[in-house]
């Protein structure tokens, strides 16, 4: 059978297009209570007093708690990644007790019989604040005598993390070209369409938690350790989850508090955020200042790269906050060969919402930096940006290749992907048009942006995570249940929230077991059902979880072979297994399907001695290496020199993600990724004012693009299978986001080169483009 590789339409659509979905906020339980949080209007203030008495008198209100009221039981929110032994890790109470450190931080909560009553009562809580100075600028925060986010820590520095390999001084000494740049990765708001929501139901000493989360398994462990509910009494369910993009890879204070309230009040409790709450208090992404130095020979060959980052942690370290910039540490050298590389990252506290994973997580930032630098290098040497990349990239016959970071890239073919992209793009034709527009002094100039990216996916080999002091492993689990009727249940520890696992996993199991696609049901996102797993992030689902499923299927077939041999009265080694059927070699009519064997095993009337009556199997896969998808993206942007308006005229993405299970799903992932990466380049930025209040609290202020803001993409693939897993897959969830941001900014800068422009800060709004142009001309 050949399910894998087929553009199967998705099974999960049936409920999503008819409104039969189970979002967490849909859950209504008898006697359910609703929580609302009172949030700090200050970026930084001491809490002098919280008076909840008037709120308690409001109609429908059941209970009101300040942080101090819950101080004995609310615990602290976890950080699972202590990146250096001396990392400063402040306490992070779910509800602030003595001090608030970002606007939007919870200071009290109301529990009421309906959501309107809970929201009404918030205004009756009286909080006395003593304002403290906000800390908003990373560089100022590190200066001597700076105001402190955590005064007890004596510093705004959380950590400095260093990696170096090769002789950087030698690389820069006498280098023909040295490019020195500073780029800013603006702060972003992930903006999943489904707001966060959590429901907790106590049942005796057991507690069921439904949450709009990417990580039900990790959340269970963390909630158990924070709240003291024994892990075996805690069941976490991620029902249908409306997008995550990293933002739901978190253990949120609201999840902890909702659980504590349900336990305290003995009733089911629900919390659902509003969008403005979410923009303030869903963790943010990016926010780095990148200081970069690149040394190259006169022919454009890179000698060395020095990266010095400031990464804004925000006010606290959440689940993987400090590790996010380090996921980029190994990606700055990208697909290029160089002898020396040095990376330093300093994590800085500010009085802003903490940052954490957002689609790509560290890798988009790194890719942006190196791909922008490659274009600058090309400009410096008057080379075509494709040519300068060609002179530096690892050639297809040089794999496996150990990079200057110590990673071993197993496979790739940058030449093939680039060649295909150039053809689809009609590169030469567009270059000719660009020259023509320049010559004519057209008010609308054309720019061409290149991004030849790679990324490390399939997070992650557990031993690598261990060496980086991450608090868990990176394996994934899967199980296969062969039901009495021959139908199949697949369990996966990877927790989908839009990625289409229910379809793709059924395709994999269908091929591996030789059963019809329709006979397979995929179960996920419930710790009582898919009991073991490490969830979904970092383009890991297929590369780690899909491979675990293959392992579980192989075990089922192995068990079935023994039963088949017994029932067919043949030697197991004489059996062939094809299209789900065991037959005796040379006697094809003498055979049994694996589905029949499932029935016979269930009956257990006639099993070989010592064989247990079950074909069910499970497998856990821990990858030995990351996977390295790559690709070439080309963007043509028209820039109106009178208004600064940027229009993407053409966007070509050729991705090499190895073998493909479902091309339809892959295409969708690429489209969505491109939209988010392009949007970082052009539209999105979380803006705080001088007092530290978030200005972009609604979707009217924070520009998530609409259909009319984005172009039609041309997507294609090359296929260089990964050699490190049996499926040959590499992961696709983040590729589009990682590749597209530099492609777009490179195109804008390329359009404006004749005007003396060498950078435009993101997001490249018409105003910023126009100002860059005026400054460029003035010089």
């Amino acid at each position, binding site marked *: 059978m050949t399910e894998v590789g087929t553009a199967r339409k998705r099974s999960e659509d049936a409920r999503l297009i008819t409104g039969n979905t189970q979002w967490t906020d849909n859950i209504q339980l008898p006697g359910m209570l609703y929580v609302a949080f009172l949030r700090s209007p200050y970026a930084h203030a001491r809490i002098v007093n919280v008076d909840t008495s008037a709120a308690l008198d409001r109609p429908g209100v059941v209970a009101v708690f300040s942080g101090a009221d819950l101080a004995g039981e609310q615990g602290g929110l976890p950080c699972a990644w202590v990146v250096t032994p001396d990392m400063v890790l402040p306490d992070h109470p779910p509800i602030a007790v003595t001090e608030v450190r970002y606007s939007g931080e919870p200071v009290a909560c109301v529990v009421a019989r309906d959501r309107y009553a809970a929201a009404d009562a918030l205004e009756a809580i009286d909080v006395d604040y003593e304002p403290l100075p906000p800390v908003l600028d990373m560089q100022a925060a590190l200066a001597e005598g700076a105001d402190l986010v955590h005064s007890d820590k004596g510093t705004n520095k959380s950590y400095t993390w260093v990696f170096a390999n090769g002789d950087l001084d030698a690389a820069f000494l006498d280098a023909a070209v040295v490019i020195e740049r500073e780029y800013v990765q603006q702060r972003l708001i992930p903006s999943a369409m*489904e707001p966060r929501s959590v429901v907790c139901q106590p049942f005796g000493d057991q507690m069921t938690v439904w949450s709009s989360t990417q990580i039900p398994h990790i959340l269970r462990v963390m909630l158990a350790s924070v709240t003291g509910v024994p892990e075996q009494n805690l069941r976490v369910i991620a029902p249908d989850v409306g997008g995550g993009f990293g933002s739901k890879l978190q253990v949120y204070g609201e999840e902890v508090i909702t659980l504590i309230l349900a336990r305290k009040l003995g009733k089911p409790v629900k919390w659902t955020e509003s*969008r403005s709450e979410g923009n303030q208090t869903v963790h943010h992404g990016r926010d780095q200042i990148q200081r970069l130095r690149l040394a190259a020979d006169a022919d454009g060959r890179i000698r060395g790269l020095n990266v010095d980052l400031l990464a804004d942690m925000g006010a606290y370290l959440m689940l993987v906050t400090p590790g996010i910039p380090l996921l980029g540490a190994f990606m700055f050298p990208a697909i290029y060969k160089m002898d020396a590389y040095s990376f330093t990252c300093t994590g800085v506290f500010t009085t802003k919402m903490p940052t954490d994973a957002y689609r790509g997580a560290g890798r988009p930032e790194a890719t942006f930096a190196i791909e922008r630098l490659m274009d600058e290098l090309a400009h410096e040497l008057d080379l075509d940006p494709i040519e300068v990349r060609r002179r530096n990239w690892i050639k297809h016959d040089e794999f496996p290749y150990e990079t200057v970071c110590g990673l071993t890239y197993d496979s790739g073919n940058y030449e093939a992907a680039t060649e295909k992209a150039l053809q689809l793009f009609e590169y030469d034709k567009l270059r000719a048009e660009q020259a023509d527009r320049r010559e004519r002094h057209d008010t609308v100039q054309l720019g061409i942006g290149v991004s030849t990216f790679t990324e490390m996916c399939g997070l992650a080999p557990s031993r690598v995570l261990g060496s980086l002091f991450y608090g868990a492993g990176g394996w994934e689990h899967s199980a296969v249940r062969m039901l009495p009727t021959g139908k199949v249940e697949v369990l996966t520890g990877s927790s989908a929230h839009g990625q289409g696992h229910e379809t793709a996993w059924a395709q994999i199991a269908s091929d591996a077991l030789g059963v019809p696609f329709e006979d397979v049901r995929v179960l996920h996102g419930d710790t009582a059902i898919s009991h073991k797993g490490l969830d979904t992030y970092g383009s890991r689902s297929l590369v780690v979880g899909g491979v675990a499923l293959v392992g579980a299927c192989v075990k089922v077939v192995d068990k079935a072979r023994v039963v088949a041999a017994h029932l067919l009265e043949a030697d197991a080694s004489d059996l062939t297994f094809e299209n789900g059927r065991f037959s005796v070699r040379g006697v094809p009519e003498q055979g049994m399907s694996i589905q029949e064997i499932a029935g016979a095993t269930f009956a257990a009337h006639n099993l070989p001695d010592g064989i247990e009556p079950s074909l069910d199997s499970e497998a856990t896969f821990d990858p030995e290496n990351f996977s390295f998808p790559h690709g070439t993206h080309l963007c043509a942007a028209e820039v109106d020199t009178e208004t600064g308006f940027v229009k993407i005229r053409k966007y070509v993405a050729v991705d090499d993600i190895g073998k493909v299970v479902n091309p339809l799903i892959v295409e969708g992932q690429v489209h969505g990724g491109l939209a988010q990466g392009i949007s970082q380049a052009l539209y999105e930025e979380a803006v705080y004012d001088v007092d530290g209040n978030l200005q972009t609290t609604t*979707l009217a202020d924070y520009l998530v693009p609409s259909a*009319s803001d984005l172009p039609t993409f041309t997507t294609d693939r090359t296929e260089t299978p990964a050699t490190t897993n049996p499926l040959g897959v590499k992961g696709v969830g983040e590729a589009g986001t990682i590749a597209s941001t530099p492609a777009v900014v490179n195109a804008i800068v390329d359009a404006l080169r004749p005007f003396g422009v060498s950078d435009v800060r993101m997001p490249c709004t018409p105003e910023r483009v126009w100002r860059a142009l005026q400054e460029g001309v003035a010089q």
Partner: protein
Amino acid sequence: MPRIKVEVDGVTYEDDVEPRLLLVHYLRDRLGKVGTPVGCDTTNCGACTVLMDGMSVKSCSVLAVQADTHDITTIEGLRINGALHPMQEAFHSEHGLQCGYCTPGMIMASIDLLRENPDPSDEEIREGLEGNLCRCTGYQNIVRAVRSAAHEMSHSEVTSHD
């Protein structure tokens, strides 16, 4: 409390409601019509789009009392004689959804778009859906789905007149 009489997906309801109750909360919390989700509560995202007397409205920005005497269609009431609406079919066939959270609103808005313009260009589809945000798909397959549904619906109308 005012009393309202509303037809929702073919069923008539009479209820006393607070004047400030939002239509979307009336649908979700009172009638259990949870197929219509809330994405932003500020009229920006369109996830809560329903049809009121056949015209699309964002139900987070309509009060339940404003729906009095009106006819509401939600994603749950789209099936025709048990069969999926061509727009639902098209979103499935063209992979016009991933997480699916924006999908009910996107489908309802697309139906209203075709009511106004049965044969839209890609650009007209993109502009027509400007009030509905999707974070997963990059919109390309949504545009493709609407185009395909437009074709299907014009075709089926022709055959039904025959």
